[in-house]
Structure formats: structure tokens, C-alpha cells
């Protein structure tokens, strides 16, 4: 009996593998190969302008990147943008998700309106924000409470502010959508029961909604953190890394595309890749442990 089940389970397992095989092969071809090739390149001294100087240099590209203050400044800048934008997006996204969830009339229009920023190409959105803050042509300096000579894109703090605002404006809808899916998981009966027991709105939100939404919140945070860590477009358009706002992706771009230094640039890319894996592991292992438990219970 037991043998038969295992045999069948093995059979199913095989079928499962066969079914996922096409996508695994495609993934290996389109993601695995470039990743492996980038790692290979990162171990070479290889500048497209001096192809004859190409040689194997081991980990020296990595020691060079990790030993430079530029890399660590850029990591810090990227963290600032990531933490600020994701934190604001989470709060705003939750509010918007609640609105979308509760909307009684005009659900369709409300959801569509909220999604518009997410539908706009990031580069276009970034240009719009840059022009808005441009002291010559923008409208921001004509707003009440804003100094007429304000030039946020001229200073580091101001540039960060505008970049974070752009990111928040652009991707809060995405966050809201993911959270909305989580909200739908919370059974109404629990709220009813809690209300009967005399729980306040706040209590119900923090004691019922949030714990039950935890898996959705973690997925939303993970997606957005990974995205935000690789932020490129808005920084490229706003400052191109000026005013000490260079992010790791901008550094990678400069070394790889502008300086055509494939070895060094690949080392930067691989390091970004590892940073992203670390972040993902943090979310899955540290925050995700209790998630599995939660979903098991629900």
C-alpha cells in the first residue's frame, strides 16, 4: 500500500517536472546564461577599448569595487531611496487599498484612476517630475509655502526628496493592488464577531486585518524592495547621479555602458545581484518564517 502510494507520488513528481521543464529550460537560457556569463566576465580584466589586454584576474575586480568609497556611498544612497520610498508606499498603499476595498459605488473608476500612475512609463513620469521641479519652467516654486527660489534638484537632500516622491507616486498603486488582494483574504465574519465583542476600528485593523494580511504585506514589501534597490530610471533622469545621489545601478551603467569596462562593470552587476539575493533571503527566512505558519492556519 505504502509502496504503491510512493510509486504514484514519484510518477506525479515526474509529470510535474516534465510540465515545468519548458519554463525551466527557457529560464536557464534567458536568465541563467547571462548570470553565469556575467560572473565569468567579472573575473576578467576586459575593457572593450583595449581588447588585447583581456586577461583572467580572479577576484581583483571585486576587491576594487568593494574597496572603493564610491561603491559604499552608492549602496548607502540606494538604501536611503529604498527604505524611504517603500515605507511611504506601504502606508499610502494600505490606505488606498482600504479605499478600493470599501468603495461601494464607482469601484471600477476608482481603481482605474488609482492605477493610472502605474501605467505611465517611468522615464516619462520622471521627466514630468523633473520639469515640475525645474526652477525655470516648473510650477512647484509657484506653489504656496514654497520659496520662489527653491531648487530641490540642486542639493542632495532635495534630490533624494524628489526621487523618492517620484518613486512613491509611480509605484504606490502597485503596492495598493497587492495589498488589496490581501485584504480580500480577511473574512468579514471575523470583523463582525469582533465588532459584536466591542472591538474598536483601530483594534480590528491592527488585531485582525494586519495579522491576516501579513503574507500579502510581506510579498508586497519584497517585490517593492527588490525593485527599489535596483532603481535606475528616475535617478538617471533627475540627476544622472549628480549631487551625490548615484545609486548602484547608475554606477553599474556608467562602468559597463559608458566606460565599456566589461570586467569591472560585471563585478558591479554581480554584486547588485548578490545584494538582491540577500534582501530576498532576509524577507523569506526572517520575516517569512511566521508567514508559512499563518497561511497554514488560514
Amino acid at each position, binding site marked *: 500500500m505504502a509502496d504503491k502510494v510512493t510509486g504514484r507520488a514519484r510518477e506525479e513528481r515526474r509529470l510535474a517536472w516534465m510540465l515545468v521543464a519548458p519554463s525551466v529550460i527557457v529560464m536557464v537560457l534567458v536568465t541563467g546564461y547571462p548570470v553565469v556569463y556575467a560572473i565569468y566576465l567579472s573575473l576578467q580584466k576586459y575593457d572593450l577599448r583595449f581588447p588585447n589586454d583581456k586577461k583572467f584576474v580572479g577576484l581583483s575586480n571585486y576587491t576594487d569595487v568593494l574597496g*572603493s568609497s564610491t561603491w559604499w556611498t552608492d549602496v548607502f544612497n540606494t538604501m536611503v531611496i529604498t527604505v524611504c520610498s517603500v515605507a511611504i508606499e506601504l502606508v499610502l498603499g494600505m490606505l488606498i487599498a482600504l479605499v478600493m476595498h470599501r468603495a461601494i459605488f464607482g469601484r471600477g473608476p476608482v481603481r482605474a484612476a488609482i492605477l493610472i500612475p502605474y501605467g505611465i512609463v517611468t522615464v516619462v513620469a520622471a521627466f514630468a517630475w523633473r520639469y515640475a521641479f525645474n526652477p*525655470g519652467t516648473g510650477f512647484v516654486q509657484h506653489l504656496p509655502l514654497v520659496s520662489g*527660489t527653491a531648487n530641490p534638484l540642486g542639493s542632495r537632500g532635495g534630490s533624494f526628496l524628489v526621487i523618492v516622491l517620484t518613486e512613491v507616486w509611480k509605484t504606490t498603486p502597485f503596492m495598493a493592488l497587492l495589498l488589496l488582494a490581501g485584504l480580500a483574504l480577511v473574512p468579514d465574519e471575523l470583523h463582525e464577531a469582533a465588532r459584536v465583542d466591542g472591538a474598536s476600528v483601530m483594534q480590528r485593523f491592527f488585531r485582525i486585518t494586519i495579522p491576516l494580511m501579513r503574507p500579502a504585506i510581506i510579498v508586497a514589501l519584497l517585490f517593492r524592495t527588490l525593485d527599489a534597490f535596483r532603481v535606475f530610471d528616475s535617478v538617471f533622469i533627475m*540627476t544622472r547621479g549628480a549631487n551625490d545621489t548615484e545609486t548602484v545601478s547608475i554606477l553599474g551603467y556608467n562602468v559597463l555602458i559608458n*566606460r565599456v569596462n566589461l570586467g569591472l562593470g560585471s563585478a558591479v552587476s554581480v554584486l547588485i545581484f548578490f545584494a538582491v539575493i540577500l534582501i530576498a533571503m532576509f524577507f523569506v527566512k526572517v520575516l517569512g518564517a511566521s508567514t508559512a505558519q499563518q497561511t497554514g492556519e488560514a
Partner: protein
Amino acid sequence: MPAVLRGRSIRGVVTTALVAALVLAAAGCGFSESTSGGRGKTIKWYVFNEPGGAFEQAIATCNKQAGGKYTIQYVRLPTDADQQRELVVRRLAAKDSDIDIIGMDVIWTAEFAEAGWIKPWTGARAQRALNGKLKGPQLTAQYKNTLWADPFTSNTQFLFYRKDRVPKPPPDFTWDQMIDQASQRGKAIEVQAARYEGYTVWINSLIASAGGSIVDENGNVKVDQTAARAAQIIKKLATSKAAPPGMSNNKEDDARLGFESGRSDYQTNYSFIYASAAKIKGFQPKIGVAPWPRVDASKPPRVTLGGINLGIGAYSKNPELSFQAAECLAQPENQVVASEKGGLAPSTGVLFSNPRVKKVLPFADIMSTQIENGVPRPVTPAYSDISQAIQKTFHPPDGVDPSKVVSDLRDKLKKAAEGKIF
């Protein structure tokens, strides 16, 4: 769901997917062959998109003169110099035989020559290419005593001022005088100080006008106190009342817009802003043109050269015809057309007194003097690294520290030369 995946339909799905993938791949293969319509071999000219139509007319002229030997085809590159370079470099590094003629920004010569991406010009052909060209453009096309391209158009920056507000600047007008005067009047001086190639142009002109240079003739780093002097001027302007709003983000077009808005008395920029001013009623007559300001009252300014040279791609399948086509494109008539339609300065000296050029560029005499004495940007294969290092050292303009700039720049240039992160 399983019905779709069962039996023959799996094959159907796979086939459809493969066909779709192939179609997508084929469609994604970049430039499609557009109608060349002519006869003979097709010679492709990769050059920036010139909206005035000057290059189209030059191509038409040459295709006619070729009499069926070749047909030049215009492949438009972005207008941003950094993007042009990135696109061409990627193709050349992949040994793309599609590139026959390259409209090369003057700063690419050493890099492309060293990498073996362009063919040298030799013998009688080299003599013809240099014949009658001003010294400045000649320098930009040479590297290690070899000619690598045919100088086509040229350019430098000038000082534009508001004739209706300030007196004509004296011949020895300096940056210091200009900043003091504009600050007193509470009017701005428009410059290019965003962290990009245009900022390198400004810094290079300041250092050269102070009597220095960033690298010597052999391509070795040679940073001295002239860099500190350049930083002083930049900082003085950036922290004065004459600093234009958003200075640290301003490029050529932001400067033009600022000047046209009336907020500024002075502007350093290229000749295109003069043609642009004609579009605003009654504005062009208010603009005066003067030589670029001096750093040191006793030394004439030495201004960074711009413009494009025509190089021949090393992997071209028709190099001989490409050389002929490039020579044809660079002929004086086409340079005049480039001035008339695109506001680009010629590289051939006598053309500056050509009435057709003088009509569109009334300050042609100042122009030819400046181009003749113009300075190339650092001639070195690692130019783009060096330019990035310069920009990073001097940016932001109000935060640059003249006492640290020399050691900082040396350090960054050393790292750039060693292929390290800076």
C-alpha cells in the same frame, strides 16, 4: 485546461510559440533596411539626427555626384553625445560591418583609433582631408601622428550678452569682471554645469584659458594649479548672485531658455542659440556676440572645440567607397549647407568669409579665430573615463573646493587610467 494540452494540440501550442518567438526576434533586430532607392553599393553614414535637413541635402548632393558608384544612406543617431557614443561603441566592439562612415564627435578620435575601430587616413587622401582646414579641427582628427578622420563641421562656445542692458565687453573681459558685474545688477550668467559632457567642456576651456591642460601631448595626466583656478571661478559664480536658478542641472538648452526668459545678462553657449533667438520677435537684435571671457586678463581665451569628423568604420565591407563618400560629404559646399541649415560652423578656413555662412553666423570672424586657437579635450583613448572623473570632481559647482580639487582630480584620473572605480 488539460484538453488544450493533450495530444496534437501540445505540438500546436509549441509550434505557435516558436513561430511567435521567431517573428518577435526578427522584428527586434534593430534598424530595418529602409528604402535606399539608389544604385551601386549602399554606404551607411551613422551620424546624429540633424533636424534642419543639412545632412540629407549633403547626402543628396553626393549621391548625385557619385553617378551610381554608391548610395549614401542616413542612419540617425540620438542628439545626445553620450548616447551617440554608447550606441556606436557597442556596435563597433561587436565588429559591426554595417557601419561605413561615422559622424564622430571630436572627442572620440583617440578612443576609436586605439581600439582599432576606425581606419587611418593616409597619403594623398590625408592631405586632401586636411587641406585648408583650421588648425583646431585638424588637431581633433589626429592621434599619435596619424589622421583618423576628415574634419567636417566645427564649433566652439562664445559669450552672448544683452546689448540692450550691458556695454560691449572689452577684449580682455574676464570671468571675474563678468561675475562681479552681473552680481551687482542681480542678473544671471547662463552656463552648462549639470554633471555631463557639457560641464567638462566648460572646465576644459577654463583650464586651457588659464594656461594649463588636463593631459599632456603624450596622454599623461598633468593636473596643476590651473585646475584650482578653474574651480575658483566655477565656485565664485555658483555662490554669487549671478548664479542662474538650477545651475547644477543646466545643460545647453536650459541655458538658452534662461537667457530667452530675460533673467540673465550673459550666456556662454554654442552658435545655435543665435538662430533660435530669431524665433522670438525682436529678440535677436538685442543679442551681442563676443569672444569667450578670459580667465587671466593677459591671456587670450582658449576654448574647447566641438564638431564632428568623418571616420571610416574598420569593419566596413566597402572601405574604398566609404572613403570616397566621406570626402564628398566633407566638401566645402556641404559645410556651407551645414551652416545654413544646422547653424554648424565649417572646418575649412576660407568658408568663414563665405557670404552664405556670414549671413547665418554674422560673428563668423570671432568664430574662426576661436576655432583656429581652440583646444581639443584631453586626447586619450580613455577619454570618457577622464571626462566622468572631471565631472565628478567639480560637481556640484557650489560645493567644489579649489584647495582640494587638484589632488582629488589626480586621484580620480589615476583610478580611471588603471580601470578602477572612482
